[in-house]
């Protein structure tokens, strides 16, 4: 429900309205900027023709209908038809152009957002809710798209229409125009009053709605637990209270938002009445012509709409700017720091020797998670990390590909301090298999190929064979071309993990990082996967985290961690002989 709560922050006013708007326009490319000028011309033409069309009724009635000039009437009607045709064409072009400009600009913005997002450090994602970031692609982009395609041009056209109408009314009768203009402050004031009220209640409604939706989400996704604990009634009661609260807020919000249209319509009618009466009087005493009055009446009908619209448009533009600010916030986030200018490339000849020397690190300032860790992993060696939850095992694995930068100490790969290595090449030199397996919406083949993009089909299959994934893939309905959707929902946990391992295999890196790669898998499937992993680990430096000591015991070195420190190290036999923590864990599991 993060999305829903975002509405709240979005309904707030943008911080730097004008600056953001200017920046938003910088996403128009040269062509779109030129098109904007053309679209603006069409916009002006359409307003001009619209205003002129309404005016034509004056000469038609005065010069042709009343004097009975039939031929003249046909002539002027032909002109009028032409004007309307032009109006229609200009409108069509204008709408299409603004649409294209808006949607293309949003696409550019969206792509930039994504490009930047994928370059943000892992820390950024740790501290943000996925839903919050998603809402920038959905809600915020929608708002911007609305503003760029619709609201902005409508706003401009509204203002221009008002000016055009006022000018024309002034031409027909300055006095009558003054009468009409009296209504403007009344209308603007009323509109403003309604908008202010409705916004106030809307904010309250959104808060209430967010609360209710949040509760609903929790209770529905936990529906089974609710059942198991007979909690339906208690839950229902709380729901009712929240629902009623929303109802109270919502009634007011809906009332005020629904008030806008009829009120403005009625005020417009009032204006029409005033114009008719005063116009009639003026026609008698000041010689206002009948055609002029008719044209004036047309204008006064068109008068209310732009004013009515503008309040809504203003709101939606504000919302768009607020959305843009939230998007720019992400774009302006500091990406992963650039490599040092003299950073070296780890090439294909990398041996995979890893040395950590007194490394200290924590996620939050002042809270150390890794407290002075040192070890060396010789090329082709297998290092296992064991220890209780929170001992710092996963953190060590995250430090190697530089998802996070260490606070102090040294991390050296093949004799190069990692801060001197180009980050891309560092990451290419290792492959990770995590506990939570994630796949992309694509074919099985492409999911494996994700490990190395230029791998041939044969190489992909070879990797699958090596890691024991081949046989189950062959049994899928379309083999390697089977489409995986929803994070591979059509596969079992074990099969998903096998694909992950195959993906690491096709990358063929000198270093392998395995974080609980088999713990979500039942014991029997694990045997199969373990075989795949063993094959994969041959000839590579591997760092392994595992729950089950049976996975760990074959490691060349076992590091026992506690509270961010290594408390024991050695191979299985040595550690058992030490009769310390490791031995105790072993006893527990295998007595």
């Amino acid at each position, binding site marked *: 429900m993060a999305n829903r709560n975002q509405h709240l922050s979005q309904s707030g006013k943008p911080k730097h309205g004008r600056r953001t708007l200017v920046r938003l326009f910088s996403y128009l490319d040269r062509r779109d900027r030129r098109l904007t000028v053309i679209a603006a011309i069409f916009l002006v033409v359409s307003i001009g023709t619209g205003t002129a069309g309404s005016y034509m009724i004056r000469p038609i009635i005065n010069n042709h*209908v009343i004097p009975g000039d039939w031929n003249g009437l046909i002539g002027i009607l032909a002109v009028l038809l032409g004007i309307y*045709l032009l109006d229609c064409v200009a409108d069509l072009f204008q709408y299409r152009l603004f649409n294209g400009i808006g949607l293309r600009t949003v696409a550019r913005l*969206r792509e930039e957002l994504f490009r930047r997002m994928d370059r943000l450090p892992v820390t950024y994602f740790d501290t943000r809710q996925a839903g919050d970031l998603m809402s920038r692609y959905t809600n915020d982009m929608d708002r911007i798209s609305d503003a760029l395609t619709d609201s902005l041009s409508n706003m401009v056209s509204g203002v221009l229409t008002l000016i055009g109408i006022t000018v024309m009314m002034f031409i027909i009768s300055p006095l009558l125009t003054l009468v009409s203009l009296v209504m403007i402050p009344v209308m603007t004031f009323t509109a403003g009053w309604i908008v202010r009220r409705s916004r106030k209640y809307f904010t309250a409604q959104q808060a209430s709605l967010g609360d209710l939706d949040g509760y609903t989400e929790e209770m529905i996704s936990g529906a089974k637990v*609710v059942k198991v604990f007979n909690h339906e009634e208690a839950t229902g009661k709380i729901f009712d209270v929240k629902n009623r609260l929303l109802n109270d807020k919502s009634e007011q919000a809906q009332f005020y938002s629904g008030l806008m249209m*009829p009120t403005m319509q009625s005020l417009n009618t009032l204006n029409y009445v005033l114009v008719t009466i005063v116009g009639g009087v003026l026609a008698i005493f000041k010689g206002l012509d009948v055609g002029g009055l008719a044209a004036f009446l047309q204008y006064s009908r068109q008068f209310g709409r732009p004013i009515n619209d503008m309040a809504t448009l203003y709101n939606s533009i504000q919302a768009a700017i607020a959305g843009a600010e939230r998007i720019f916030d992400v774009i302006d986030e500091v990406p992963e720091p650039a490599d040092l200018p003299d950073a070296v490339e780890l090439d294909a000849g990398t041996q995979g020797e890893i040395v950590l020397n007194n490394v200290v690190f924590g996620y939050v300032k002042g809270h150390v998670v890794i407290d002075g860790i040192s070890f060396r992993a010789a090329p082709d060696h297998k290092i296992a990390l064991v220890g209780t939850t929170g001992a710092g095992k996963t953190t060590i694995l995250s430090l190697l590909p530089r*998802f996070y930068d260490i606070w102090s100490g040294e991390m050296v790969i093949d004799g190069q301090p990692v801060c001197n290595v180009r980050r891309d090449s560092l990451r290419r030199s*290792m492959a990770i298999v995590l506990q939570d397996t994630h796949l992309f919406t694509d074919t099985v083949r492409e999911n494996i190929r994700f490990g190395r993009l230029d791998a041939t089909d044969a190489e992909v299959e070879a990797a699958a064979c090596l890691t024991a994934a081949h046989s189950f893939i062959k049994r899928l309905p379309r083999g390697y071309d089977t489409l995986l959707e929803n994070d591979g929902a059509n596969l079992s946990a074990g099969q998903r993990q096998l694909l992950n391992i195959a993906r690491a295999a096709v990358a063929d890196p000198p270093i392998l990082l395995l974080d609980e790669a088999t713990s979500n898998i039942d014991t029997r499937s694990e045997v199969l996967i373990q075989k795949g992993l063993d094959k994969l680990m041959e000839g590579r430096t591997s760092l392994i985290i595992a729950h089950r000591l049976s996975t760990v015991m074959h490691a060349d070195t076992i590091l026992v961690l506690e509270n961010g420190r290594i408390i024991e190290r050695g191979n299985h036999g040595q550690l058992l002989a030490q009769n310390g923590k490791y031995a105790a*864990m072993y006893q527990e*599991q295998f007595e």
Partner: protein
Amino acid sequence: MRQYWQILKKYRWSLLASPLLIAIAVFCETMMPMYMSRIVDDGVMPRDLSVITATGLQMLLFAVIQLATSVANAYISARTSTRFGTDLRARLFDRIESFAFPDIDKFSSESLLTRLTGDVTRMQQTVFMSMRIMLRAPMLFLMALVFILMIDSKLALVLAAAIPLMVIIVWVILRKGLPYFLKVQRRIDRLNGVVRENLLNIRLVKSFVREDFESQKFKRTSRDLQETSIRAANIVVSLAPLMGFILNVSVVAVLWFGGGRVMEGTLSVGQLISFLNYLMQTLMAVMMFSMVVMNFARASASSERILEVLTTDPSLVDTPQALANDYSVTRGEVEFRGVDFRYGGGENDVLSEISFKVRQGETIAVVGATGSGKTSLIGLIPRLYDVTAGEVMIDGRDVRDYRLGELRLSIGVVLQKNELFSGTILENLRWGNPKATLEEVEDAARTAQAHDFVMSFEKGYDTVLGRGGVNVSGGQKQRLCIARALLRKPRILILDDSTSAVDSTTELKIRLGLRRVLAGTTVFIITQRIHTMQSADRVLVLEDGRIDGFDVPAELLKTSKVYKEIYDSQQFKG
């Protein structure tokens, strides 16, 4: 529809008042051009001021009435539609709460959630809009048409040409546009999918240095969406200019024919002008209506989704036998007799021919590979699902003879997918027993090895958990869930792989703790850990939905190949 009417009939007076108010408002509105034409023809032309003032005052009166009735209708429709939404939401929630596990599976919680939020809101908006525009448009159309016919029925033929044309345009645009809208929606889903996957897989993307690759993929998806959106939008935006053009052409036509009639003397100038005004009103009404129809089309999809839930009856309810007697579980013996089970809509039996008997106070480990039917089996005991054939007995009585409430009260279940809810730890634990004293809560937490870490939090049991318990680790969450189930003081306790994220030392402590406090309670544990299996009184081995063995662990090692395999895979071979 019957479902909606049950809610709406509460508001029937509002539903009656609303059209009446609209009718009055529309009537006032349509009177205006008529008065105006009187002012022109009888006031301006003959230069008679008294007609103008008298007519003008009447116009003012009507304008005020229009304002008053419109505001009143806005109030009534806002209130009614909001209450309708509130009631509908409450009904839907009630219905979902009454659902049994199979029903929840059928709909999936995500889809239930969108129905409760988005769909209800859309229905509410539809009612609101209907009460304001839906009725207004036809009324405006009809009244304006009456005036048009009164003024000049021949001139009204212009409308006969314009309206069908408008309808055709709307129809064509809808037909051409609709497939594109669906396409746009699919592209949006795909785009969001790419973003979601990247958020989920960010470590993977980074570790394989695939940022550029993913950006390119996103760009392609984004461009696809852009192209389709532009195409869809281009169709839709033609609507307004084309409708406007038809309106304008009608005006020209009226001026042409009407001008001629004025020259003939069969029509007055004032009438011509008012005719133009009415023409605008009718065509506006048509446009308004077409917009409402489009909205209705969208609402009907929401409505279908809501009705689907409202018309689904919970598949598990108290049987008449259960209601007639009020049996309670006293000992906690469990027996399966020839049980077959398959999920609703499933093609294959998940469990077949399951028969076994468990004595009070036994601890049974249920083991087997993923998909062998462990979770399905234990779900039958508290009647989360009903058997397809055979029977499940507790204390020698079919589970269907107990009231559901009683079963849930006397059987503690820790589901594989645990949930904690926002609120304090204490509140969460008290789900197990609302009347539990703080001492009891602490005892349960101690047994589940949760007390120590809870106390390490600054606020202890008053620590507020975020949604879904996000601020505790997986292992901590599992321990809290066990404590919660323990507070039920159940006769039967079911643990479905509930300690998978707990390290083995802690797990051992939990197991010993359970042994201590649960003497006399029958326990079922689904587990992957050999040590847990070995310490159980008996082990039930499942293989492809059938019992492969049911015996004391030592015996099973000799008799069950499956169990032996599991055992060996976790033993040291080196």
